[in-house]
């Protein structure tokens, strides 16, 4: 028990004298997670609506891809992108490896299927009657999709929360493509891995507390969004 108290006391001390080095990490965590959630939702919501409402060739394959994507192992996504962005790899010329941009791309790959899956599920969950109404409205495809997304806005909020939750808590992909470099690509999760590996448990717990606070705030904020409507 004494050990745990020591770690906790240490964590409090780390937080109380948190300097710019920790704030840089927090800021990058927020920036990378927010950017990738936004892009993931922008891509995932239309994709989810199309999967729920559309009748087109390849829908089955796309649906399968989304299902697989929702559970895709992050560290594998990281590895594949590392190979693609490696200097002598196919997109190496872009110079993205070990940059925040590469981290955002990896996170988008993880977030998009989650957003699409959640939105698709909640549109289908609207039930038959709203669907019939949608058909009766004789709207164009795009308009129909927009009405459906509006109806399923609680689902969209859940999609935002779920995507953010997945990316902000994720460590495998950002570690591999980002490299956890001081002041450049270090985020809270990779910092926790590093601190615990070095047995600086107090600092690891402090970073963990930060991560928890961020996740909590975002979930509360997004929950409000779903209740109050879009």
């Amino acid at each position, binding site marked *: 028990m004494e050990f745990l108290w020591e770690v906790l006391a240490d964590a409090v001390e780390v937080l109380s004298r948190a300097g710019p080095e920790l704030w840089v990490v927090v800021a990058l965590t927020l920036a990378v997670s927010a950017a990738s959630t936004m892009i993931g939702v922008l891509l995932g919501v239309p994709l989810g609506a199309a999967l729920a409402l559309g009748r087109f060739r390849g829908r089955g394959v796309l649906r399968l891809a989304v299902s697989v994507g929702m559970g895709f192992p992050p560290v594998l996504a990281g590895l594949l992108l590392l190979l693609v962005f*490696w200097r002598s790899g196919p997109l190496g010329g872009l110079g993205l490896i070990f940059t925040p941009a590469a981290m955002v791309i990896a996170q988008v790959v993880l977030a998009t299927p989650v957003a699409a899956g959640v939105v698709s599920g909640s549109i289908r969950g609207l039930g038959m009657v709203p669907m019939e109404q949608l058909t009766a409205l004789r709207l164009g495809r795009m308009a129909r999709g927009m009405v459906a997304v509006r109806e399923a806005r609680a689902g969209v909020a859940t999609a935002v929360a779920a995507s953010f939750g997945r990316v902000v808590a994720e460590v495998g992909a950002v570690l591999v493509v980002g*490299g*956890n*470099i*001081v*002041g*450049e690509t270090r985020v809270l999760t990779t910092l926790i891995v*590093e601190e615990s590996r*070095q*047995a600086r448990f107090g600092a690891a717990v402090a970073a963990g507390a930060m991560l928890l606070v961020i996740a909590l705030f975002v979930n509360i904020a997004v929950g409000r969004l779903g209740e109050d409507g879009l």
Partner: protein
Amino acid sequence: MGSRSWLTAVLAAALAAGALTGCSSGETRVTVVAGTTLVDGRLLERVTADYEGRRPDVRLSVVGAPSARALALAEAGSADVTITHDPALEERFIAEGRGELATEVFSSRFILAGPRPESGALKGMSAVEAFRWIAEQGHPFVSRADGSGTYQVEREIWDRVGVDPTGREWYVETRQGMGLTLQVASQREAFVLVELSVFLTAEKTTGLLDAALDPAGLENPYRAIAVKGSPVREESLAFVEWLGSRSGREAVRRANLELYGAQIFEP
């Protein structure tokens, strides 16, 4: 129902497997904390497997950590044996009476690796001259900056140059192991001080070139220490003794040959 009973069977099998590997009877577990290079490079894996073949009653659990961390873990009672490469720290550790038995086990060396044209220009220079050139040019340099033996050597060279690179725009700190640090150096076309075996293993993928400096001052000796106060004192002492023995050195030579085709960690 069918799927549930299937799931139960899988769970039971997993638990049984865990129990079998976890507590095979009569084995004494010795925790060896060794420099990350030895662990990541798999050399130690082979040497310890060799030893376990001779002593089936002993199980060596190898954990990788930078040298400073390894010795701190030993001080906290979390390691029975350390194998590190930070002579100054090791000598202090021994002087404080924390080591029961210490022996130099093998030695590799550091090289300076960097992008092609620049590396070629540094050929034959001393480490101090090369580092001074890097600082003057402001050429990107990637450092582990993590309390490893490698970083210690790097700092000593910077001290002799009379430059503190911390915070300079061209100086990148990864604060991580040699493997990732080498990757970052490769992708940024930067210089990096790297242990020879790590460099050789990744030479093709990194595309960096050995600058072929004058090797003086770039030796990398490893020392094994049996930690005083270990609950498995006898087994720890026996392992460290074996590492220094003819049979241990033979095992190291074999591991070298299998991994690198040459004696990189020279016993």
